[in-house]
């Protein structure tokens, strides 16, 4: 096979949704951790020289929770308020690459219509050619956010002490991009 695919990040990349996830974890009941993900995510990745840009959008209603009462609470204004602010959005402002695929991404995360700066760290790997010769890039990022800055303040004191739901939410994305033909 004539492996002539360029080995740089230069160009635009499309999300392979099947191999990508966006999830979060939050402490609840003081000691337990609740994790879930969003079923529908979209993201873009583009490199122009050293200038790398990453964007992402997740409809809050695609959260992977089916139980109607639980889901209804999360969709309500006490949490994501999907009637007024359906999407969670991210846009990078700076992508800094380090050694061994390390990457630090600064950007703006919009949740419930409120935009706040966020810093995520992780890895940016590739490109590597898959079995069909198509270049792929992997982006794995994690960020801690305080949910209260997005007006996601629901809580309740537990009978035996402590708060029902933690303030810190750990966001994690595992994204796989494929090179777009020029």
């Amino acid at each position, binding site marked *: 096979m004539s492996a002539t695919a360029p080995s740089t990040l230069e160009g635009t990349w499309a999300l392979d949704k099947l191999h990508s996830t966006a999830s979060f974890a939050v402490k*609840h009941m003081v000691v337990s951790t609740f994790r879930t993900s969003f079923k529908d995510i979209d993201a873009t990745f583009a490199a122009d020289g050293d200038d790398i840009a990453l964007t992402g959008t997740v409809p809050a209603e695609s959260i992977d929770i089916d139980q109607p009462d639980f889901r209804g609470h999360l969709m309500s204004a006490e949490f994501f308020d999907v009637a007024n602010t359906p999407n969670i959005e991210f846009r990078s402002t700076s992508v800094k690459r380090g050694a061994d695929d390390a990457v630090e991404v600064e950007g703006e995360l919009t949740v419930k219509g409120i935009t706040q700066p966020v810093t995520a760290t992780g890895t940016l790997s590739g490109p590597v050619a898959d079995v069909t010769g198509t270049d792929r890039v992997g982006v794995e990022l994690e960020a801690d956010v305080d949910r209260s800055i997005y007006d996601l303040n629901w809580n309740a004191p537990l*009978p035996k002490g402590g708060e029902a739901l933690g303030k810190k939410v750990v966001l994690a994305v595992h994204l796989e991009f494929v090179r777009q033909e020029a």
Partner: protein
Amino acid sequence: MRILGISGSLRKDSHNTALLRAAAELLPPGVELELFDGLKAIPPYNADEDTPELQGPAVQALKDAIERADAVLISTPEYNHSIPGVLKNALDWASRPVADNVLRGKPAAVIGASTGLFGAVWAQAEVRKVLGAIGAEVVDRELPVMQAHAQFDEYGNLHEEDLRVQLAEHVAALVEAAASKKVAA
């Protein structure tokens, strides 16, 4: 030894009734759990009818079931952060007459399941509070079973070993309280 299980849910496929059935499978040898099935028939509490003659057979059945049990295990759902009305109503009937009600001195423990993230933890606390006010010997433990719709297999067994262990420890604590009561008696 006999434990009376009372589910605070009337629903046919109640997670809390399933939780009591799961508890029944985890009891030590020589201990049986009777599931009380008369909650729906209990009328709204009315002090005018609060006499042995007027309280009716459903209330009598509840009081008899509690009386012949060595301990009571209540599994409660949570409605609006609190106790389901039917359960509170039954406990109100059982609390009468105050001085020598059937729950007075009776070892009692509370568990609970909900479909959300918190396993009826607030309702459990309120049931313990109410049982304490009535005079029961309340085991000071909670067992919140969260996302209850996903916790049981098709045979009604709990999926998670951790949860089975916690439930076994919970009922063991109740059995121990009832056993020490029997020794003392």
